[in-house]
């Protein structure tokens, strides 16, 4: 079975470490906040100017001056800080954020990622994504492995306009965990019940498959 959105987030949460400052993109990455391992302290950075973003507010705590990068009302945790957009991107570009999780339409084995523009559809903008991928050493891409009609999104070369080059390291899809190393994707883990053959079939990029590929496990 392919992973649900929640399971992709759950798997990515295993990459969190105590004391990490983390930026989560919109969509599946946002769900990672629901699966912080017990006993671990993690702070979420929101690029509109929060370190220490908390959960959504109760109705009586809604504050129009306190939103996240998705323009949703939020709260902050103990020890949070607010700052300008220039300071925020100094954190991001300056490599101070420990982990960035973001979505993508396509990734490729050169390390490039496409996430912001589909030609022919209206372009809404890249927001902070280009800065995030350029600034982070530690990026996890959360995405679906292939389109509904079976076209791979793990490619030799991205076909869509790029968000950044030389930035992809770890990819968690609904089918697999892949690490990009030496210009090839290495298959590290597979979704429960998904065969190596199926992953191979839906991966256009060069794929290195070790003798044993463990299945991911999830606690419900």
């Amino acid at each position: 079975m392919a992973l649900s959105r929640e399971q992709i987030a759950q798997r990515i949460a295993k990459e969190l470490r105590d004391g990490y400052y983390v930026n989560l993109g919109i969509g599946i990455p946002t769900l990672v906040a629901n699966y912080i391992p017990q006993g671990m302290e993690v702070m979420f950075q929101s690029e509109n100017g929060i370190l220490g973003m908390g959960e959504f507010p109760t109705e009586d705590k809604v504050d129009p001056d306190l939103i996240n990068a998705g323009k949703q009302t939020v709260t902050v945790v103990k020890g949070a800080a607010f700052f300008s957009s220039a300071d925020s991107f100094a954190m991001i570009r300056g490599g101070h954020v420990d982990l960035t999780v973001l979505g993508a339409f396509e990734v490729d084995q050169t390390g490039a990622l496409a996430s912001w523009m589909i030609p022919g559809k209206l372009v809404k903008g890249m927001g902070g994504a280009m800065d995030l991928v350029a600034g982070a050493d530690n990026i996890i891409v959360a995405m679906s492995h292939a389109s509904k009609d079976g076209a791979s999104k793990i490619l030799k070369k991205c076909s869509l306009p790029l968000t950044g080059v030389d930035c992809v390291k770890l990819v968690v899809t609904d089918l697999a965990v892949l690490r990009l190393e030496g210009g090839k994707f290495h298959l590290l883990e597979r979704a429960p019940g998904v065969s190596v053959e199926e992953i191979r079939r839906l991966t256009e990029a060069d794929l290195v498959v070790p003798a044993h590929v463990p299945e991911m496990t999830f606690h419900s």
Partner: protein
Amino acid sequence: MSGFNKVVKTYDEALAGLRDNMFLMVGGFGLCGIPENLIKKVHDLSVKGLTIASNNAGVDGFGLGILLEKKQVKKMISSYVGENALFEKQVLSGELELELTPQGTLAEKIRAAGAGIPGFFTATGYGTMVADGKDIKMFNGRPYVLEPAFPKADFALVKAWKADTFGNLIFRKTAANFNPMIATAGKITVVEVEEIVEAGELDPNFIHVPGIFVDRLIKGTFEKRIEQRTVKK
């Protein structure tokens, strides 16, 4: 006005000198921390042909969206414009020019404009269409894109929380966003705030933007519309 007192009483005074074809920077992220009354006044003054640098373009009927309705904007420079149906229509029809700029680069182009830095190198956008035609330079084995600063804005429109009469500013929560840099980057910087106190009443240790950057200051009342009201279930 006398000495360092920056306070003006009316929005006509606040935007005196605003003309067609000017370059404006406007603070805010989404609808959070936008100078909503200054934007309304720009609307009422019916100036046209504006170029506006602002992270977003408002929504239909509020924020910068109301300037689009009157076709006052020639060009928007933004990082994300997804929330506005009218905006889409005008871009697709070619009435409105759009220059998409990565959010961090946008912030830095504004900061640099205010700080007297004509350009800077950033890794952001290297290898993408954003870097097309721009100079690339290697530093420590990594390619960086030369991004020019903006020119100073003819008018920089800012929303702050509190100010003293000398224009020392304090922002509140995420309503700061682009406002602190935009305050530094105007030929004329106009700030609207929720509260103005006498000079000396704000603790100098906690000023976000010093009054030297501010030319005109006005007290407004704010609707503070929320774009995505999201509550815990």
